[in-house]
């Protein structure tokens, strides 16, 4: 669906990396092909390789493996890595903790926190404890509208608000 007359690929080209909820990695492509496909300019992967494989050394070991043969956690790594290949100014990461073991979630969150030093991350996450541990700002969306926004530190202390919208603190 075009937004403001711009089509999906044009929006992406303006510097937005998308990590969808169900990861949507290309299962029949190798890890390397998944990453190469994400290049917008020739050499993108060479430039961002150190960052990507520093965050996810596992991917480097599995470059020639089919995406579909990776574990859930590795697929999530690949989905994030794919968004890091071009020089994106904003990463949209949707529910990165979904369907992953707690240990893997910890690793994922650590990685997201590290990469937020390089680019802006917009994280959609239901797991409040985790999201609150790594973010600076929050936006609470209710029925399609932003109902609250502010610094994450303030939200952490606002127990009633958290209780109302997220049910758990």
């Amino acid at each position: 669906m075009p937004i403001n007359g711009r089509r999906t690929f044009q929006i992406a080209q303006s510097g937005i990396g998308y990590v969808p909820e169900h990861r949507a990695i290309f299962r029949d492509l190798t890890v390397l092909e998944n990453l190469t496909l994400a290049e917008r300019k020739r050499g993108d992967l060479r430039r961002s390789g150190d960052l990507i494989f520093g965050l996810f050394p596992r991917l480097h070991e599995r470059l020639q493996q089919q995406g579909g043969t990776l574990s859930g956690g590795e697929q999530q790594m690949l989905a994030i890595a794919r968004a890091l290949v071009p020089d994106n100014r904003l990463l949209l990461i949707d529910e990165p903790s979904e369907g992953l073991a707690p240990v893997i979630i910890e690793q994922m969150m650590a990685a997201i926190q590290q990469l937020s030093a390089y680019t802006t991350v917009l994280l959609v996450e239901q797991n409040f404890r985790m999201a609150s541990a790594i973010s600076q700002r929050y936006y609470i969306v209710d029925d399609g509208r932003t109902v609250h926004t502010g610094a994450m530190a303030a939200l952490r202390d606002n127990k009633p608000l958290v209780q109302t919208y997220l049910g758990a603190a």
Partner: protein
Amino acid sequence: MTTQPVTLRRRRLHEIVSPLTIPLVTLLLFVLILLLAPASLPKLVTGIILPGLTLAALYFLIAAGLSLIFGLMDVLNFAHGSLFMVGAYIAWSCNVGLDPLYPNHWPVTIANSNARFVIGLLVGTLLGAGLGAVVEVLLIRPLYKRPIYQVLLTLGLVFVFDALVRSVPAWGSDSKAPIKPSLLAGSLEILGRRFPTYSLFLIVLGLTLAVAVALLLRRSRIGMTIRAGVQDSTMVEALGINVRRVFTGVFALGAGLAALGGAAAASFIGVYPEMGLEYQLFAFIVVVIGGLGSYSGAAIGALLIGLARTFSDHLVLELGLPTAIASASTVLVMAVVLLLKPGGVFGAKE
């Protein structure tokens, strides 16, 4: 959303074994046919296997594009056979129009029949590919969200192309005899039997293109994009790739392959308006057998159907059975395949 693979990858053992069931069962069927109606080795090679491969080459050229287009865009292009036919007519026209000995030849002529033939293949392929691109951009693109309309549109195009071809004065409704280039007009001796050179040319052509397109899909960036798009074209677009341009490219590629098949077939079976539908029927069976959207499946399906046709022709002739049985054999193969493996040789597991 399709999740069907363009099966071009290294597979693990159990994944290799299971697609082999269908070819093995078919092979068994061929052996059974030979037991019922024995053939000498020269007869087997030049009378059954090589003619089967010739048909397979033509079926493959149509089925490959059909399958890729369906895999990537979810469009079942019923007008694919029409592109085959148009390619054939264009090639035929080049062959006669450029011939200085032909009464109504064009202002420019070329004395060498081989050169005319090559020009016919090239012009037929390029115009076919261009026509495919035009059809995609102008007609199919507005209908990507409406599958039923696509079916109606491409079915309608079959009639449009049929009527257009018949209305061209130089073409008309009657069939034209094949014109072979002098280099490929003769026959070769294989195991003591004569075999037409042109059939061998078709086999080589089909094989070359099968390998070339496989390399394109496997080694090039555009091929990688196509394989990714077959799995999830929305995600490809989210990476910043203009997927619609890839769609147009693949449509043109598929149309070009079909038109090349037609252009090559023109010097083999001649040209007639019904040839498109006739070959398309088999191409559809091939695609269903191979697995919708699978390129490797189209190649294997083409082999199976091509051979099934010549084997059953052999059986029918030897045993003096009605020829309708031979025509039914391909549908029979399809039914067997779909019973064994409903998704086709390389189809998604469902």
